[in-house]
């Protein structure tokens, strides 16, 4: 249960390269310890669903991976490169963390599109200004991506004029535009009206099917079971149980997971 490389380690996947590794991750907010030593590994192509009750630390864990939260201690390795940390967990090398962040595209619960920019401008912003992709190339790619998430023709629209589902799909297009080696989804459908959840899940499902590496914090159990190849159940800052979705959902071992699953079913 606490092994560092539990994620989807069937024999034929061992040759794949490791995308994200988290070792003994601790995070405290003041006196409150939110993460109490979490180990997690995702190989390339893995879709890891992270489930758990509110306050279990699942979002915090995700945000520690790209250092939106500063871990209190532990080790984070992205694509084989360990993030240099100071004693207090803060990144020792700002340049390194900025470079690593460009490989980890995050999709937020509240979308967090830049409201003063059109959809097209949102999508090309990071490629043009951070990754220094030629603008014409970035624009062509942005059109492709917006088409792909079903927002063709909305290029010049500002986010505030779109539904939550459309905004989240645009945010996914923005994430894809950086050509990430892994994607971090932080409860991508939790802020959406029920009838808009489906359209976003469809896009994420397609991405999973094409072999994108993803860490997915979600409350959508059915969806997690369907798209993930590894499920992690967090309880009060620790991994309580993890394994393939059929095992975790079909044959839960711990009482807490059983209770949790029956409460969200």
């Amino acid at each position, binding site marked *: 249960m606490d092994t560092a490389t539990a994620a989807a380690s069937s024999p034929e996947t061992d040759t794949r390269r490791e995308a994200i590794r988290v070792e003994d991750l601790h995070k405290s907010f003041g006196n409150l310890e939110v993460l109490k030593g979490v180990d997690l590994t995702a190989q390339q192509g893995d879709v890891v669903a992270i489930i758990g009750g509110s306050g279990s630390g699942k979002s915090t864990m995700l945000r520690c991976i790209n250092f939106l939260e500063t871990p209190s201690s532990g080790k984070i390795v992205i694509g084989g490169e360990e993030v240099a940390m100071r004693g207090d967990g803060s990144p020792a090398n700002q340049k390194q963390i900025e470079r690593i962040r460009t490989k980890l595209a*995050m999709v937020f619960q*509240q979308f*967090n599109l830049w*409201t*003063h920019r059109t959809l097209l401008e949102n999508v090309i*912003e990071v490629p043009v200004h951070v990754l220094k992709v030629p603008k014409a190339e970035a624009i062509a790619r942005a059109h492709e991506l917006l088409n792909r998430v079903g927002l063709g023709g909305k290029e010049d629209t*500002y986010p*505030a004029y779109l539904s939550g589902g459309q905004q989240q799909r645009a945010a996914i297009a923005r994430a894809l535009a950086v050509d990430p080696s892994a994607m971090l989804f932080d409860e991508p459908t939790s802020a959406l009206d029920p009838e808009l959840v489906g359209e976003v899940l469809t896009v994420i499902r397609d991405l999973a099917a094409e072999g994108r590496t993803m860490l997915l914090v979600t409350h959508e159990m059915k969806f997690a079971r369907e798209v993930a190849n590894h499920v992690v159940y967090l309880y009060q800052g620790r991994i309580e149980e993890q394994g393939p979705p059929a095992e975790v959902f079909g044959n839960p071992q711990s009482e807490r997971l059983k209770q949790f699953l029956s409460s969200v079913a």
Partner: protein
Amino acid sequence: MTGLFELLGLGASAELLSLSGWGGNLLRGLANSLQIAFGAFGLGLVIGLFGAYGKLYGGKVTRDLLAIYTTVIRAVPELVLILILYYVGSDIINKISEGLGGGRVEINGVAAGIWVLGVVQGAYATEVLRGAIKAVPVGQIEAAKSYGMPAFMIMRRVTIPAMMSFAVPGLANLWLIATKDTALLAVVGFNELTLETRQAASSTRAYFTFFLAAGFLYLMVTLCSGAVFARVEKWARRGQPSLKGGAR
């Protein structure tokens, strides 16, 4: 008709206000006033931006120093500040000049006016911009961070554009205050609109004519500024639905 015209003294007024006469002086005064207002507003913006970032993200010493700056400047009447900053500023420059072996320096009135009013404007701009930066949804800055933007790029590409819509009404106020504060520079003998008006009025004894004309010029500046700021605000609010609802 001509009789009524003469009765109201409009003919005499028009003659007094002719461009080749005192009217030209008034317009030159206005130009000086605007030059200083522009400079002071610009300097105030720069000070304000650094001040706001310093207050929000600076260390303890920076924050304390900025707190002293904004508190003192906003507590003391502007007229007093102008007298202090003008005479202290010119005194310091002269001391330095003499110390370096040079003679007394003639202080450029425009530069002095810009520096004095700019320091005053900076204190107010610090607070306007600090409030605007705090109003930017934290998620937009987090998104920028999570995609690897360095701090300065986040400021340039995300924070400043996103805060503009919150800052523009306050900055428009500051600009109008800047145009009118230039009148206070009359006390240090700078030839801006108010001083020119006073000189014209006392030389000709036509007080009413000249102060009315000056008032009209200040009003025109305000009206033009209003039109400009309306456009700026519309641009800064791009992407935000109108509060009244309806189409964009």
